[in-house]
Structures are given as C-alpha cells and as structure tokens.
C-alpha cells in the first residue's frame, strides 16, 4: 500500500480482464435441462407431421451438417455480414451525428425529432418494398433497409443519453475551466457510452433480422436467399437449418458487442 509507483495508477487496467472473466458464469444444469426438454418436445411434435411441415431435430441437425460441410456457409454469411456492416456503419455514423446535433441544439431537435419518429414508425415492409423499387433485386436494397431501420434507434438512444447527462458534472467542468474538447471527451462521451452500447446491441440484433428479411424478398445471394431457395425446393429442414445459423449469428454478435464494451468498463460497473 505504502510503496507507491506510478505504475499502480494504471494497474486498474490489468485488473479489468480478471474482473470480466470473473463475470462469466458456468452453464447451469437448469439451462441444459431446459434445452433438452425443448428438443424432446420438438422431436415429439415432429412425429405428428411430415418433414415437409415440421422436420425433426435430427433431420435439421443433418442439414446443418451439410451446410457446415459446404462452402456456402462461409460465402453466404460473408455476403450478408458485409451488407449488415455497411448498413450499420452508415446508421452508426449518421445516427450518432444526428443524435449529437439533436442533443446539443434545441432548435435542431424541434426540427428533426418528428422526422426521426416518423422514420421509426414506418413498417419495415414499406421501405423494403420501396428499396426494391429503387435499387432493384440486389444487395443494395438490403443495405438500405438495414440503414433505415437502424438510424432512428441510434438517434433516439443518443438523444436520450444527452438528456441524461448529469448537469452537475457539466457544472464541475465549467468551474474547473474544461475546454470544449475536454468537456466532450471527459464528460459527454463517457456519459453517452451506455446509451451507445445499448443502441448498438439493439441495431445489430435488428440488423441481422432485417438483412435476412431483405434478402429473402429481394436478393439472390446471402443467407436470406438460401432460405428462399430452400423454400422453393420444399426443403423445410434447410429452412430450419439456415434459421438456426442466423439465430446463432445474431445472438453471438450481440454478445460480442456487449463483451467489447464490458471489457472497457469492467471495473466501473459497480453501482454508484
């Protein structure tokens, strides 16, 4: 305690990883049981129907294996992922900028807020249809709809973050003569971080669903197009298998984002 070296100041960083790995709980027996029960029910139900209507878990698993063995999995996932990322990157960029401007400026807020809620209220099927008309049946339409679906979520979350910045900290910054950049770097951005994180998790989850939906309707490549193919060929088991892959991708990417953020805040998660 007494022999202090400057290194100690930063030692907090080295502890972060520890704290984070400490948070991961072992898989509980209950969840394994639950999973088994669901599988059993699925198996039971599938005996009442033809595989065309409801393929059983075994058949689905076999199809899953076929997909894993083909090159399709990687190439199609990559295509969908690229579209997702392009749409999301656009949304994060535009959404953050608009959100920050709305947060900083009351006048712009009054002007843009209704527009944001208008876009948010649009049913996805509407802008998918429009995207198909405007961009034709290719990937661009998919990128566009990911973008349109995500931007308002980003904006609303950042705006919410602005509304919740602790005015007392801003006052503190003013008293201690923080420059504008220091104010943004030290107070505003860290305050927005939690909101940015939750927005990112929401839009990456939504993004996967929208990408696939867009591809099912408008594209001949990507994960969604595989589902369309499987449906056309009456391979319901393949629809299930691709579905499982998409669910896993969606779930994993949300977890990855969450973990990335936790990594940088692990030591600060205690209640204030």
């Amino acid at each position, binding site marked *: 305690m007494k022999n202090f070296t400057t290194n100690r100041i*930063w030692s907090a960083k080295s502890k972060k990883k520890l704290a984070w790995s400490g948070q991961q709980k072992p898989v509980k027996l209950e969840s394994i049981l639950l999973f088994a029960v669901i599988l059993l029910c699925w198996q039971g139900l599938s005996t009442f129907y033809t595989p065309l209507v409801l393929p059983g878990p075994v058949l689905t698993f076999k199809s899953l294996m076929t997909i894993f063995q083909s090159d399709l999995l990687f190439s199609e996932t990559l295509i969908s992922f690229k579209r997702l990322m392009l749409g999301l990157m656009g949304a994060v960029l535009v959404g953050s900028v608009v959100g920050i401007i709305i947060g900083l400026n009351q006048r712009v807020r009054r002007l843009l807020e209704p527009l944001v809620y208008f876009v948010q209220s649009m049913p996805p099927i509407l802008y998918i249809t429009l995207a198909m008309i405007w961009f034709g049946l290719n990937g661009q339409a998919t990128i566009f709809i990911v973008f349109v679906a995500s931007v308002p979520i980003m904006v609303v979350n950042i705006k919410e973050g602005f509304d919740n910045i602790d005015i*007392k900290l801003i006052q503190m910054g003013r008293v201690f003569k923080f420059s504008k950049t220091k104010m943004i770097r030290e107070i505003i951005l860290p305050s927005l971080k939690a909101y940015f994180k939750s927005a990112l998790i929401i839009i990456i989850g939504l993004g996967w669903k929208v990408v696939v939906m867009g591809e099912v309707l408008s594209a001949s490549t990507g994960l969604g197009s595989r589902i369309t193919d499987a449906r056309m060929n009456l391979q319901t088991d393949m629809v299930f298998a691709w579905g499982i892959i998409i669910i896993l991708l969606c779930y994993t990417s949300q977890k990855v984002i969450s973990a990335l953020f936790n990594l940088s805040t692990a030591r600060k998660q*205690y209640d204030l």
Partner: protein
Amino acid sequence: MIFNMANVCKNYGNTEVLSNFSTSVEMEEVVCIIGPSGCGKSTILNLISGLAEPSAGEVANYSTAISYVFQEDRLLPWRNVYENIHIVNQNCSTKACLSLIKDVGLQGFEGYYPSELSGGMRQRCSLARAFNFEADLLLMDEPFKSLDYNLRIEMISLLLKLWDSTRKAIVFVTHEIDEALLLGDRILLLSSRPTKIVKEFKITAPKKCRKLADLQMVQIRSEIIKSFQAGI
C-alpha cells in the same frame, strides 16, 4: 476585494431564497458561512462561482479562477482517483499530484474508481481536486462532512497549511461551529429563508495559534448556539 455581491435576489420559481443579500470577500480572507439547512448557502456559492445567475442585484467577481469543493463530490465516475485529481490541472506533475493524494490520506487508492470509495474518501478526493486547481478563490461546501474526528482535524490543519502558503481567499460553508472558529477570519451566521445575515463575527486571532478554549472563541460559540436555540 475579490468578490462582492450587492442587493442580490435569487428566486427559484416561487421560492425566494435570497432577497437583498449583500456581502463581500476580501483578498486572503477566509469567510465561514453557518446557517440552517436549506437557507441558501450552496446557492450563495453557486452565485459566486457563476453557476447560478442572480435574479436581481449585482455580482462582481475579481478573481481569475475559482476552485470549488461541491457539496456532493461530483467526481467523474469513469476516472480513477489520480485521474480525477490530475484532470483539473494537467501541468501538475505526477509527483505533486501523488503528494496531494497523500495529504488527503488516499495513498494506495490512486487507481480506485469513485464507486469503489467510501463517501468520506470521495469527499477527500474532491478536496484534493479543488486544491490541485490553480485559483485565487476557493469555495468549499461542507467539505469535511462524513469525515471522522481525526480526519477532520487533519483536514483542517491541511487547509490551514495550504492557506498559509497560498493565501487564497476561501468561502467555507459548514454546519460545524468549531470548524468555522478555527478557520474563519469572519463568520457569517445566516437565518432561514428569506435569508439574511443575522450576525457577523470577526476573529482577529491568527489562525495558526487558535484554541477552541480561548475566551473569544468560547464567546462567539455560545452566541452562535444561542441564536440557533432562539430559532433563526
């Protein structure tokens, strides 16, 4: 004179906190403010620091920079103790910063985040931060609350030492009469709202060699207590 307010009124909605309030702070002077809870002590400090605007009246601030120990700690939750203190004065050397941390008894906790500290430790961190900021006027809003007796004594002598070497003007809000007696050149006793200065005490004895048992101290103290008992 480093600060002056004349006939200041301050309203929050319909609550009139200050009406026709006048006071001033001289260079190198330590002014202690005592008054009932909710009478507007923090409001006065906010008016001095410019965080609040008077509803009417004049506020004149001649200081170059003001440092402030807020009533709440107002530390950055995402910065550790060292960073919270260093951040207000980036020219401050690591060594100076660390010795300041030691002065307030937080050595060993440099890497801790505010959420990992006790209330009193956060308060001391906020104290060190205020000391680290270069200013000629220091505002302190109940800076030693939630500290134990020993720490309080230590912090008082630290503040005296600091004042002795820098001669900053200090406005010190407190509920502890003894703190005011030991630190103040002047003690303002405030009434409850609408807030007036009920009494003003001048203490002439040099701060370094004051004892609470001195006659002047005992007298002032009993007068303050009497005023409280009479209900101000």
